[in-house]
């Protein structure tokens, strides 16, 4: 058979038509799409089996329970640990992207002296020299840890001073420390049993206390219910997130919280709405009305609303003796639904705001919030995992980042129960970093190391045989056969929880109505986020949603 030119054309046309109706072009189009998604410059996740580890978040003293998903030794996802006795699965928004922080562009990777690269040896030599020349001051942002004991030991040995910075929630409890003798760190609010919570601008639904502790109670007892079991009254000038969701929002003039507290106390005492537990304020109701911008009748109505459902407790966003005195008048100190002391008392500690001016050197631990700047001429050695610039520190020393350091966690501020937990380092740092405690142990080998202190603390808890261990399965401490088994569980992310505090009399010696400094509370939980940076994903989402101002912008 002869194959003609016409046959060739017919065959070619048929082949072209056949190709069009065949899946080949569509398959090619599909494959092109797939190939073009796999360009070498497009990052791809590592493919490895997922391992879930229980640990705690060390980014702020609230130490929420974490479930970290690890692949090939790297954290690839964070979720709340539902077995944690206080945070119970809730986290602050930033924690969900905290595993990105170690690669933040502003990660501090080398020792810096006045902005120039230096070395650890030079830093050690400079600090040793300074410590030999005069008194030193060590500032800790997360007291009660084993690392804190190392810092305190060093300060004592060198006849230096150890000071702490408190989160605003603890600072709000400081007035009771003066009046009752119980340390502010050992006090807590019994919000689970409160019927009325009066917040003077405290961001109760926006990161105040331990995320998930109050917000869960609020969502179960108050949200969307016209006549809730828990009445949240928010008093502040602007409509914050907490005010938006409160049972009642009362706008008052800025910095007039103390006047309103005094006005409320006056009404409560004059109208005998409460038994007289405290002194009569000197401020008259008319003056309180003038200062707050609220009519006197509104203050009276508010006072009646507060005592209509008891127990009632007032919460200050920061240090405020007048709001604390209102709690004394309400009889909320030491009673159910008010302010309770946890069973274990702590030693009151001096705040870092009272800086010793004669110090030759100041060492600041990485846990101290970045915006804390000591006003001193001393040489400042600051440990930090991130460096956004803007610091008066002479030395910047790279500290371990997220999940890179072995640490333990004492009871978090405002936690209703006592807790203790251990978080081993889950990641190996990619650059040379040292914690302040490790740095000091390097200078003085006689100091007890953090790991040893953690072992002895675990042994102490085991010997006390109280409380329970909250892990995959909750178990009472006496049920453990040996300290090794008990400690093994703690190192795997279980949390020791003490018994809930019982109301006990806290004798208040408040003779006169106190003066309160005016305060401008922070809007939300970012005030207690001590880091100068936030996960890049958070910056992006806040920028695009307009939901919040990013930490970087706020710092600027």
């Amino acid at each position, binding site marked *: 058979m002869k194959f003609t030119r016409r046959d060739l054309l017919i065959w070619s046309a048929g082949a072209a038509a056949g190709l069009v109706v065949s899946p080949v072009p569509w398959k090619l189009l*599909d494959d092109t*799409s*797939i190939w073009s*998604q796999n*360009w070498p*410059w*497009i*990052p*791809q*996740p*590592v493919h*490895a089996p*997922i391992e879930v580890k229980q640990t705690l978040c060390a980014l702020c003293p609230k130490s929420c329970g974490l479930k970290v998903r690890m*692949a090939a030794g790297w*954290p*690839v*996802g964070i*979720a*709340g640990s539902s077995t944690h006795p206080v945070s119970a*699965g*809730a*986290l602050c*928004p930033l924690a*969900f*992207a905290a*595993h*990105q922080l*170690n*690669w*933040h562009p502003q990660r501090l990777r080398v020792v810096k002296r006045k902005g120039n690269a230096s070395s650890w040896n030079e830093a050690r030599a400079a600090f040793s020299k300074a410590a030999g020349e005069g008194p030193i001051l060590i500032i800790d942002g997360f007291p009660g840890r084993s690392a804190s004991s190392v810092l305190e030991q060093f300060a004592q040995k060198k006849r230096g001073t150890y000071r702490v910075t408190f989160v605003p929630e603890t600072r709000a409890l400081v007035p009771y420390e003066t009046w009752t003798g119980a340390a502010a760190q050992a006090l807590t609010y019994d919000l689970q049993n409160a019927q009325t919570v009066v917040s003077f601008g405290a961001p109760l*639904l*926006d990161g105040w206390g331990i995320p*998930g502790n109050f*917000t*869960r109670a609020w969502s179960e007892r108050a*949200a*969307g*219910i*016209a006549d809730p079991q828990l009445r949240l009254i928010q008093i502040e000038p602007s*409509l914050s*997130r907490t005010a*938006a*969701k409160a049972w009642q*929002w009362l*706008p008052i003039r800025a910095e007039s919280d103390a006047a309103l507290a005094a006005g409320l106390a006056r009404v409560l005492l004059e109208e005998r709405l409460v038994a007289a537990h405290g002194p009569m304020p000197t401020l008259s109701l008319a003056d309180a009305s003038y200062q707050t911008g609220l009519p006197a009748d509104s203050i009276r109505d508010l006072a009646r609303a507060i005592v209509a459902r008891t127990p009632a407790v007032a919460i200050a966003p920061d240090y405020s003796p007048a709001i604390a005195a209102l709690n004394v008048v309400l009889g909320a100190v030491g009673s159910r639904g008010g302010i309770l002391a946890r069973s274990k008392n702590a030693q009151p500690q001096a705040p870092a705001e009272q800086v010793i001016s004669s110090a030759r050197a100041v060492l600041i631990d990485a846990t101290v919030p970045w915006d804390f700047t000591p006003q001193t001429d001393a040489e400042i050695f600051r440990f930090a995992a991130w460096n956004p610039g803007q610091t008066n520190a002479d030395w910047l020393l790279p500290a371990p980042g997220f999940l890179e350091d072995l640490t333990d966690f004492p009871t978090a501020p405002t936690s209703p129960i006592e807790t203790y937990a251990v978080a081993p380092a889950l990641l190996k740092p*990619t650059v040379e970093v040292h914690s302040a405690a490790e740095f000091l142990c390097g200078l003085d080998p006689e100091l007890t190391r953090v790991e040893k202190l953690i072992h002895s603390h675990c042994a102490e808890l085991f010997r006390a045989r109280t409380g329970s261990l909250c892990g995959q399965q909750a178990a009472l401490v006496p049920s453990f056969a040996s300290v090794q088994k008990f400690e093994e569980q703690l190192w795997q992310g279980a949390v020791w929880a003490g018994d809930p505090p019982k109301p006990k009399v806290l004798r208040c010696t408040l003779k006169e109505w106190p003066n309160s400094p005016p305060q401008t509370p922070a809007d939300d939980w970012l005030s207690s986020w001590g880091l100068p940076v936030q*996960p*890049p*994903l*958070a*910056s*992006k*989402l*806040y*920028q*695009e*949603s*307009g*939901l*919040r101002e990013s930490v970087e912008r706020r710092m600027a």
Partner: protein
Amino acid sequence: MSARYGMVIDLDRCTGCGSCMMACAAENNVPPLPQATARTGLTPLLVRKISNKKEGAARREAFIPIMCMHCEHETPCVRVCPQQAVEVDRATGIVMQMPQRCLGCRYCMTACPYHARYFNWWDPAWPAGMEKSLNPGVAVRMRGVVEKCNLCHARYHSAKEKAAAAGRREIDLADYVPACVEACPTSAIRFGNLADKNDPVYREANSPDAFRLLARLGTEPKVYFKSKEAWVKALAEPTFTGKTEVKHG
């Protein structure tokens, strides 16, 4: 038996913390593009603030998480896609977006009544080393494709694998929890099978306080909202009486 996975979001419980938004982006390997703006960014789940537009003490505000509503009937994005890059999975009811098939025409973005779809304007990029923190269960998408919430489909696959390993055909719903649901500290976002009358989410979706956004369009979204506040419910069906000026560019 095919499921109809859906959500009920209790707006009275939502405090606008943004944990859901953050957990969603981290789970789905959304890149932290610093050059993105509110118009060009990627937010598969976006928490918006709404108010009753009153002033002073009478003003009230609420927060509303907006994501793909997984419309069931005449799904607008499915109907306009020329590439079959969007389809409703009959086994789950999830509206699936397949970036491999997407050619980036953005018809679906125009068609979506909820503005819940986003276009990838840039190649995904992370600061050096941060790619180690990517979720292995979710592929990174290239630029030039549209993306949206797919109810954490990777988690659904994991639940399927777990069920298969245990010799079961049906998944255990406890194994399939989307990231936003897991992250919500007030349990405002609830997830479940709307086809199962015994599922608490079915009951909540049928409660008198439940409503859907733009229900009058008849697309049968599978994301329900809940509120006792009348002004919040009223915003679900907005009506425009005046002229609205639209600025382009």
